């Protein structure tokens, strides 16, 4: 599927599924839609039942809605599966579980996905396998010390098959990241990564073409960190950049307003 089309459909799915369940974390999911669209439409091409050629770890597990939607668009989850989101007895919760088809790793506790991804990339390095590992982190997740252990390790071991993406939307649960624990500008975050031995680039996290170029497989021996400048709640005007939308579900009025806006997006 064309990644632009993938992204458009994914945005609508996120709204629809969250509205049905009355569950939030919408802004965090909308923030990564374009990243997910590029990854799932272009680069995560695992065939079912075969040894995976790529691994994907959604380290920011609270954006699982975007992952479920992406898996649906790839034909791995059915519409019925999505309709069970957060229902009693459902396999699909607010954070993703590895028991779900297409999900490699359970996440939800921030700061743990990059270590696991580094382990996967290390395995590929030891066995000289071509497998690539992608890990998507939130910017607030960089508050966790264990992330920096993993960054230091991957840089030191030259895990070139590891690509991490930071969803730099500048927001976290209780405020702006610049006010809670300031990470610095996108360029400064990139510079931090470079100083740890990563190759690092800043991109517009809502520019499909730029993301496609940045996330394309490369042959360098340094792990890659893509700093994606994003907007939490991207595409829904009243949600964009509003900290409250980290958790809130949508009212009926907000739902239809948001649907109208997203449907109008190119």
């Amino acid at each position, binding site marked *: 599927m064309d990644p632009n089309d993938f992204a458009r459909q994914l945005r609508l799915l996120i709204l629809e599924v969250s509205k049905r369940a009355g569950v939030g974390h919408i802004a965090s999911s909308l923030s990564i839609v374009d990243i997910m669209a590029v990854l799932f439409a272009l680069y995560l091409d695992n065939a079912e039942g075969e040894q995976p050629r790529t*691994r994907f770890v959604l380290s920011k597990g609270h954006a699982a809605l975007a992952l479920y939607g992406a898996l649906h668009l790839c034909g791995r989850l059915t519409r019925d599966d999505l309709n069970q989101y957060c229902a009693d007895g459902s396999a699909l919760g607010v954070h993703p579980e*590895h028991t779900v088809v297409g999900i*490699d*790793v*359970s*996440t*939800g*506790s921030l700061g*743990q996905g*990059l*270590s*696991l*991804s*580094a*382990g*996967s*990339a*290390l*395995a*590929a390095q*030891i*066995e000289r396998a071509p*497998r690539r*590992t992608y890990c998507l982190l939130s910017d607030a997740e960089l508050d966790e*010390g*264990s992330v920096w*252990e*993993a960054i*230091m*390790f991957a840089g*030191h*071991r030259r895990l070139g098959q590891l690509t991490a993406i930071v969803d730099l939307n500048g927001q976290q649960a209780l405020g702006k990241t610049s006010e809670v624990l300031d990470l610095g500008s996108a360029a400064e975050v990139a510079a931090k990564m470079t100083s740890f031995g990563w190759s690092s680039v800043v991109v517009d996290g809502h520019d499909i073409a730029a993301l496609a170029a940045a996330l394309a497989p490369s042959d360098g021996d340094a792990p890659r960190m893509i700093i994606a400048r994003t907007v939490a709640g991207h595409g829904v005007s009243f949600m964009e950049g509003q900290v409250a939308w980290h958790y809130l579900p949508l009212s009926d009025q907000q739902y239809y307003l948001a649907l109208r806006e997203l449907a109008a997006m190119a």
Partner: protein
Amino acid sequence: MRKAVIHELTELARTDERLVLLTGDLGFMVIEEFAETHPTRFINMGVAEANMLGVAAGLALEGYRPYCYSIATFASLRPFEQLRNGAHLHQLQVRVIAVGGGFGYGTAGITHHAVEDVALMRTLPHMRVIVPADDRDAASAVRVLHDAKGPTYFRFAKDSRVLDALPGTFDETRLQVVGDGDVLLLALGTIADEAVRAQKLLAARGVHVRLAIATCLAPAPVDHLVELLREARSVVTLEDHVLPGGLGSLVAEVIAERALGCRLQRLGIEETHSPTLGSEAFLRRRAGIDAETVAARLAALVASQYLRAS
């Protein structure tokens, strides 16, 4: 015990290319045999245990068999969440090599005393918790469990130890029983040396003790435990671990749930914030879990058992 384990891993790695050894920058004069024999599968992770357990989960996800080496406190308490959400949640074949369980790092200080680890690990329903009794038992346990599904936490004593009274072979389903007597002494593997010595001290005084060493805490060898407890009037548990959540807790649970009639006394570490430090032997003495104190407690128990009965 550390060297025996590293030697066993070095041998296992000759035939299993999936075996990798990670260390949190520990194992000086211990780990070299593996590092020199299998340099590409020896990875010093730096002083970063949380990342070590996370990376181990990733390696295991791809089919490797990572063993993670560190001092028991740093291998259990700090990366507990990584272990819970990684190897345990995904049921991956990650092994924790936790060295110096109990007071093994006595003079190193309280930060190095691993006395809560068994309790912590027992809370994870699918975590195998193994506490070998001596060098041979340790090597045997590592070998026997190498192919076992899911994660394993190994709690090893630090120093080399061979207990001739014990079989030296690991069996997940049974305790290691030595002798017979008026009272049952159940000891955790890492403190089996004191228990064996207590049994000898008592024998010299004409007091006979049935000794059972628990080397597999989870999955608990319940059938064998029940069999032993049914035959005992009194049981004393001994562990180089705090009382909540350890061997004594396990035995209490079994006695209560099976409505067994035996009387239980638990000996373990009741005070972890010691004002002074010393060797493992010194700290065990002060905690009252050394052979002499245990022997005295058991002798008194046996006497009271007969006095009350008459």
